[in-house]
């Protein structure tokens, strides 16, 4: 199933949006528009639902979920950068059972669109176990597997930095779900296309990229790193060109769809990301400084599309190649 809407329904969609279509499809999952708040920057949606109707979004990727509840890393976890921030949250989340029993009902109450479950693990088994549990949630339509977690059985090296390990995670998750599996890749690697190809060969339905880039800030008064864990994940507008480059490279390397992210802060950024090869676009850090950022991007898309003579976003995916 690629697209279940009839041609007639599609025409109506186009007319509604004033002769432009923002609809996109991710492995059979239809999104009204390609804008998706990125994991870890939107909680479980309800903080944002207090200030606007989040059903204007294409989808939503919730905070990375582990088997056990995690408090996360020591404080400070946040360091400001020029046009971005470093975060070292350490995957704080209530654990998969509470996510399912407490957070998802609250999210469902304010969000009726397809949900993307962001899944983490510290072993292959944990990835599979968490995926199997979240697979049962009806509104979860895509599993996004964050392979930037350290592998406790392999000296703490992250799954996503080695093609073989990333492929192994992919295979393990594919075994427990029929839903589309998107592997979310780390940019902190020598050749991201090699890892993307390994995931595709292992059965991944799509690729999400990029996660945060490893960074550090130093406090000049204390003469020590700002972040308690010293290093953290750098994201925000500053990393946009790196993300566009990597989406472009991965689009050339694989045939499966890509969810592009990294520094997207405007509708024009979203369009650029799609031209590079993204079928949908996630917005992360921008939500933190402007809680309306994702909504504004959705609203500005038609105007921005008109400016560049784009009538259908689906037609521009990978257009820069």
């Amino acid at each position, binding site marked *: 199933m690629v697209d279940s809407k009839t041609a007639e329904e599609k025409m109506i969609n186009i007319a509604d949006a004033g002769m432009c279509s923002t609809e996109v499809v991710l492995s059979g999952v239809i999104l009204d528009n390609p804008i998706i708040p990125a994991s*870890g*920057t*939107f*909680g479980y949606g309800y*903080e*944002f639902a*207090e*200030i606007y109707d989040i059903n204007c979004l294409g989808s939503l990727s919730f*905070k990375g979920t582990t088997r056990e509840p995690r*408090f*996360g890393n020591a*404080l*400070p*976890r*946040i*360091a*400001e*950068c*020029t*046009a*971005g*921030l470093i*975060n070292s*949250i350490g995957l*704080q989340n209530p654990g998969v059972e509470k996510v399912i029993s407490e957070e998802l009902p609250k999210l469902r109450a304010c969000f009726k669109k397809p949900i993307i479950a962001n899944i983490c693990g510290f072993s292959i088994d944990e990835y599979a176990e968490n995926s199997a549990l979240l697979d049962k949630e009806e509104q979860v339509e895509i599993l996004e597997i964050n392979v930037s977690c350290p592998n406790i059985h392999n000296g703490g090296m992250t799954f996503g930095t080695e093609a073989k390990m990333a492929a192994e995670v992919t295979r393990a998750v594919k075994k427990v779900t029929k839903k589309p599996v998107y592997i979310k890749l780390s940019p902190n690697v020598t050749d991201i296309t090699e890892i993307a190809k390994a995931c595709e060969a292992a059965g991944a339905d799509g690729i999400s990229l990029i996660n945060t880039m490893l960074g550090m800030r130093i406090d000049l008064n204390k003469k020590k790193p*700002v972040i308690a864990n010293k290093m953290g994940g750098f994201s*925000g*507008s500053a990393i946009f060109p790196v993300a566009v480059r990597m989406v472009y490279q991965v689009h050339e390397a694989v045939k499966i769809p890509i969810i592009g992210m990294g520094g997207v802060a405007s509708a024009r950024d979203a369009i650029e990301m799609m031209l590079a090869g993204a079928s949908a676009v996630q917005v992360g*850090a921008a*939500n*933190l*400084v*402007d*809680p*309306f950022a994702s909504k504004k991007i959705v609203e500005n898309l038609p105007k921005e599309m008109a400016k560049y003579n784009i009538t259908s976003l689906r037609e521009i995916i990978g257009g820069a190649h």
Partner: protein
Amino acid sequence: MKQDFFEIVSNERLTGNVMELVLRGDTSEIAVPGQFVNIKLDGFFLRRPLSVCNCEQGANAGASCGAMAGKSEGMLTLIYKIVGEGTRALAEYKAGEMLDLLTGLGNGYDISKSGDEPLLIGGGAGVPPMFLLCRNLIAAGTKPTVILGFNSKAEVFYENEFKSLGARVIVATADGSYGVRGFVTDAMKDILYSYTYACGPEPMLRAVYEKAACGGQYSFEERMGCGFGACMGCSCKTKYGSKRICKDGPVLEKEEIIW
């Protein structure tokens, strides 16, 4: 939470590096003392959190037509210490300029627990939230005592403002150049009180926590990604589990604090 643009009415120096910023805008989300606002500054990625020092809800809160329709045009006072790049940049803003604020953030102080003679303790940049708290406690019929702690006489601000609210005010300076010599805890010695409210640097909070025999509420600071509960950047451990300083705090009950 609400996002709105506020007009700067004034932005003036109170002491060498402490500024008072008066803003006009939609204050309707500011409900409780101890809440904070998060300010966007040109050229800085993250917003800067500052406590509500004073807030007057607008008279035209109920306006149904014109530019003010549905808006409550109130006045908001913030006091900030210049400590880094962002606060230094904020000090350069002039009256008439606009600032993008998220308002109504955090839980704030619960005044229902105060008893008849609450003790309010503010240290340095922790003094501002005590002002609206003191005002509300007096309006609620209690008799608050306020201890303001500073390093030296030159740093003292708002002593008279607290006095004009009708509170008993004690100033402590670490170098003894004004008021009680020593820390706020030295000024607590001979006072009877029913409850404590505190805001200031963590060592001060901890000293007050250890000294005070009664219950209390303590306001904490942490580096923030969002300020409204979305990023988990500000989580701390409490006896009741993990809490986000920005959303479940910044005010914690004495009995739940883990140092």
